[in-house]
């Protein structure tokens, strides 16, 4: 494919993504949602993008992303509450703290694989949860969460409602663009090789551990961006932000969307948040219904929503082959 074709394709792709992202505030109400739901979907979209780089590309399932989200939210929220309303300062410090934590956690947890790695990440996330609940409660608000956060300001203007939505849209588009650049880079190719055959890659001259740690750091960075945006948007940080069940929820979003596709988990986040909104208005048992929907995806569509076109192609392709076979047989009779 020529260089010009590749650039054109990318521009078209990002153009479509921008159109979908920036119009979400008006399209979500058309299907029974509310405008602010669009902002939440986009913020979660950034979080699941980060998870997909670690799980979908590199093949390391983490149950600790609540730690990145929660720490980012608490640090940003605390700064907005006590130090400054400058959104860039609050976000930059929050993201920097999360990135450092991601590096330290990555170096420790990535010495293990598979279930042991997953359990280690879960354990660290739980550690942060209990730290926020008790020892650090004067800073975090304990089980009340961090309340009364002041609205963030951008160049002297308060961000809320529509202005906050546009701010989040820009971050989402930037996050998607960077995630795609990572996936298509030589670094992204190495991550896919780690997922496919880590041992072979080591014998090909690659320091696999360093690549995995940086994937964890990038993933944490995205989580930090999402968490800080959440605090700025919500002006409240619940303690549940750090609970391991929150980590499980974003894994569910990614499975429904389709691991490894980047945009799939973002769609999954939209589906889960939309269903939570709609179902919770209909019945108190919405968790049960959401669970059944998740199980259905795992059983019937394990590749998520993004694998649907391929499945349909195979389904209709095989039916066409059967019909052709019948016609040929009749012609031969």
């Amino acid at each position, binding site marked *: 494919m020529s260089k010009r074709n*590749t650039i054109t394709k990318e521009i078209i792709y990002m153009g479509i993504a921008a159109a979908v992202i920036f119009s979400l505030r008006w399209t979500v109400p058309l299907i029974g949602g509310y405008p602010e739901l669009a902002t939440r979907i986009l913020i979660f979209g950034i979080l699941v993008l980060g998870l997909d780089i670690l799980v979908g590309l590199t093949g390391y399932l983490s149950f600790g992303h609540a730690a990145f989200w929660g720490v980012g939210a608490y640090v940003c929220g605390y700064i907005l509450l006590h130090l400054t309303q400058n959104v860039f300062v609050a976000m930059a410090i929050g993201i920097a703290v999360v990135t450092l934590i991601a590096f330290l956690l990555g170096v420790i947890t990535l010495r293990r694989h598979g279930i042991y790695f997953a359990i280690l990440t879960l354990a660290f996330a739980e550690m942060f949860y209990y730290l926020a609940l008790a020892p650090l409660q004067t800073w975090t608000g304990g089980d009340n969460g961090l309340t009364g956060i002041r609205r963030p300001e951008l160049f002297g203007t308060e961000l809320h409602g529509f202005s906050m939505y546009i701010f989040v849209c820009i971050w989402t588009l930037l996050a998607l663009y960077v995630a795609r650049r990572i996936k298509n880079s*030589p670094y992204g*190719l190495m991550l*896919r*090789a780690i997922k496919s*055959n880590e041992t072979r*890659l080591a014998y*090909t*001259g690659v*320091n696999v551990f360093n690549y995995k740690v940086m994937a964890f750091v990038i993933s944490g960075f995205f989580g930090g961006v999402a968490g800080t945006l959440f605090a700025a948007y919500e002006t409240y940080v619940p303690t549940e932000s750090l609970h391991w069940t929150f980590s499980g929820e974003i894994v569910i979003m990614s499975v429904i969307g389709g691991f490894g596709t980047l945009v799939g988990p973002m769609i999954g986040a939209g589906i889960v948040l939309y269903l939570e909104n709609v179902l919770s208005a209909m019945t108190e048992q919405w968790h049960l219904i959401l669970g059944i929907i998740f199980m259905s995806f795992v059983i019937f569509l394990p590749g998520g929503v993004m694998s649907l076109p391929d499945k349909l192609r195979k389904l209709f392709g095989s039916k066409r082959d059967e019909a052709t076979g019948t016609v040929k047989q009749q012609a031969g009779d």
Partner: protein
Amino acid sequence: MAVNNAELTVEEGRAHSIIGPNGAGKSTFLNMIIGSLTPDNGTVTFNGQSLLGLNPHEINQRGIVRVFQSPAIYPEMTVIDNVTVATLAKRDGTFKFNFLELPARRRAAVAAAEEALTEVEMIDKWDEEAKNLSYGNKRRLELAMCLAQKPKLLLLDEPTAGMSQGDTAATIELLQKLGKRGDMTKVIIEHDMHVVFTLAEHITVLHQGGVIADGSPEDIKNSATVQEAYLGGMDE
């Protein structure tokens, strides 16, 4: 003790085969060269430098590349991507954080991958998923991945294991073609004596962890010690 008092010297540019009955210590020997195992005593030297204590990826960067007993490839990736990983590893070293590099900047690495695929006659399958390849083609792919790194020393661990007669003949032909390059040393562990005597210029025989014979294929064929170790003697 899998290997005991075994000494092996390999001449640059030659095809050297290590043979021996099951349990002789061949794979253990190979694993000590490649860095998977650390010897309790002794040295492993390559071009005058010790390899002891180095990680597998560091040993690879010194120019030593391994072909595994079962073809070790990246099944979910395309053939061209499989080999491009190898050429990028050669280009970028053990680690490079080029997470924003555009695809256009790796044209040279992709071209080198295409060259390696052409050498093993698999360029027509460049966009196939590696997991869909036949066993013989998976071996060819793995050879392309190794050749793409322009190794100084190629270690082949039973390259024809589990292959049909046709695939074995094709692999021998390919390895013979590679053998004409004087710039690459090959160490081949094999059970198939036809492969050994077709490819090897020098043979070392291991038995119960030690070297019992070392010499030209003719010397080994005629060695009574070797024939005794291989119950009932060897037939070519």
